[in-house]
């Protein structure tokens, strides 16, 4: 009978044991041996407490006390250590065997593995693999943090949204706060809300994986870029649920943007600066034949001045003079052909923005020159019709001139004001003022002529090129001396109109 009992108990898929009143185990079944990895002989003499998770000692002790006091069977849930060291949850039931007087003779114990039952609620409840889970959760949290990637679950049936800790951190919301689409929208960049809302609506009705990029706007004005990839899963009720990875890609996007901006600026600076380089190249190309012309002419004069005059020699050098003159003319012709192909690119240009870019470009050299720049740009300035790069070349010229004009100023602060305003409805005006030495008012017209310069190393080309650019735009450029100190250079160009019609004439031109 005993043997039969033992054989039957061995077949039970539960841990079964008997213990003396003090808890010393005197019998265990096969499942016990398999679970704990000990033999029956070795199990004998031990106690249930030897397998118990330290945190559950109280629960077991409480259970035993209740049992001693009240009798009958009692049960509790405790974690028991498996042969590999992992603790699993067991529902343990004790049944006392008593004699006629009610003295405790033995305990019958049965432990049922309830680990998997509890495991379904793993995220919220303490589970048998708590340590393991905690570890993997910690690892996951670390990974999410390192990769700036959070995860979210969105259950469509209940509209319930669950975020990982990292996602709360990315959105900078307090962990555990109740998530709603309305709350999330308070963080989405206002410009991206319409698209985001539309996406949420679409994903509700058309359930399939999606991805998106949108921005967040933090209360302090910082902008974050998020990249989201979502897949459809089924929750435990078989209802669709989106599981998504959301990565904070701000750093990458900012780096991309900075790179794009630097590239565009570089190309732009090269184009604006090319005017100076072009002037130097023209000078070199023309100077070579000019050197020949002057030398030949000198030689020719000398040959004619000898006694008797060297007529043959003079004739030969005169011929070479003509040849070199033609060469110089050829250079100019080539240049003219180069520019003739270039039609004025007309597009709507925001003069404020164009001037702002020029100031940014020149800021380094202006600071070195000790010049303080003040921008006085009119809000709501009309855009102008023109070639952005050429207009910027003019602005570069005016600003550099103003800066140079203040070179000798030492007894007062050097300031330079760049301003824009409307000139009536049809014209846009840009003004560059300085407090430098100014110029003789009688020179107000002459300074725009080619090769007129007041600067020690000036070419006299800048203002004449500026004038031809502004006139090609149908505008006007002029200068006057300030009443206090310095000069004021102004140009007006036509405001942009859809039909491209030119206004009659600039108002207020000098």
């Amino acid at each position, binding site marked *: 009978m005993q043997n039969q009992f033992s054989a039957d108990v061995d077949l039970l898929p539960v841990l079964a044991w008997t213990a003396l009143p003090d808890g010393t185990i005197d019998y265990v079944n096969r499942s016990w041996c398999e679970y704990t990895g000990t033999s029956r002989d070795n199990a004998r003499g031990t106690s249930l407490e030897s397998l118990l998770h330290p945190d559950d000692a109280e629960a077991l002790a409480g259970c035993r006390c209740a049992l001693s006091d009240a009798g009958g069977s009692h049960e509790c849930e405790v974690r028991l250590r498996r042969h590999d060291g992992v603790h699993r949850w067991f529902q343990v039931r004790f049944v006392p065997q008593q004699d006629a007087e009610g003295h405790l003779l033995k305990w019958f114990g049965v432990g049922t593995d309830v680990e998997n039952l509890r495991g379904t609620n793993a995220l919220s409840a303490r589970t048998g693999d708590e340590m393991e889970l905690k570890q993997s959760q910690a690892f996951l949290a670390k990974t999410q943090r390192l990769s700036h990637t959070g995860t979210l679950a969105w259950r469509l049936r209940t509209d319930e949204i669950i975020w990982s800790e990292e996602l709360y951190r990315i959105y900078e919301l307090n962990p555990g706060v109740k998530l709603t689409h309305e709350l999330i929208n308070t963080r989405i960049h206002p410009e991206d809300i319409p698209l985001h809302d539309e996406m949420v609506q679409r994903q509700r009705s058309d359930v399939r994986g999606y991805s998106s990029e949108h921005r967040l706007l933090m209360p302090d004005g910082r902008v974050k870029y998020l990249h989201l990839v979502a897949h459809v899963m089924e929750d435990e009720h078989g209802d669709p649920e989106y599981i998504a990875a959301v990565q904070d890609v701000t750093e990458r996007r900012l780096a991309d943007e900075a790179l794009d901006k630097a590239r565009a600026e570089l190309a732009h600076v090269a184009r604006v600066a090319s005017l100076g380089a072009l002037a130097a190249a023209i000078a070199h190309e023309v100077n070579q034949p000019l*050197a020949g012309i*002057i*030398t030949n002419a000198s030689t020719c004069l000398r040959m004619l001045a000898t006694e008797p005059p060297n007529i043959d020699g003079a004739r030969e050098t005169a011929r070479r003079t003509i040849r070199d003159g033609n060469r110089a003319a050829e250079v100019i012709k080539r240049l003219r052909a180069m520019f003739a192909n270039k039609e004025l690119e007309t597009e709507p240009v925001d003069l404020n923005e164009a001037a702002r870019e020029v100031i940014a470009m020149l800021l380094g050299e202006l600071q070195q020159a000790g010049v303080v720049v003040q921008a006085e740009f009119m809000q709501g300035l009309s855009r102008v019709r023109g070639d952005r790069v050429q207009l910027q070349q003019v602005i570069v010229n005016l600003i550099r001139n103003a800066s140079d004009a203040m070179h000798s100023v030492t007894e007062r602060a050097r300031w330079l004001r760049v301003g824009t305003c409307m000139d009536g409805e049809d014209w846009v005006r840009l003004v560059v003022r300085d407090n430098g030495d100014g110029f003789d008012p009688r020179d107000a017209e002459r300074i725009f002529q080619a090769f007129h310069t007041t600067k020690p190393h000036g070419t006299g080309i800048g203002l004449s090129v500026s004038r031809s650019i502004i006139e090609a735009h149908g505008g006007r450029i002029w200068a006057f001396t300030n009443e206090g100190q310095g000069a004021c250079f102004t140009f007006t160009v036509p405001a942009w109109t859809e039909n491209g019609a030119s206004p009659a004439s600039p108002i207020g031109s000098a």
Partner: protein
Amino acid sequence: MEGSPLVAVIDDDESVRESLPDLLRECGYRVEAFACGEAFLDSEYLDVTQCLILDIAMPGMSGPDLQRELQKRGRTTPVIFITGHGGAADRQQLMREGAVDCLIKPFNDADLLRALAIALL
């Protein structure tokens, strides 16, 4: 002409190579013209040239390169630079490094002849 100073003109520009020797010969100098510094270094005139009129920017060896090469070989032949680029800073630098003068093209004959006279003092 025999016994008058020998001047070498080294310039990659043909009109300079033709006009300058004409002028200098007219003024009594003996002149040899070369299209590059390498040709001058290989020539028989290397040892007997008393002054160099040297273009700065040339393909291959530049004017200052040739001057340094000559200094390395222990030669103190005076050099007058001529250039189509008018960089004032470069000019100062070249003068500091031992050039007699640096003339910016186009230059007038009087300036060149004055520099040459100083070089041959």
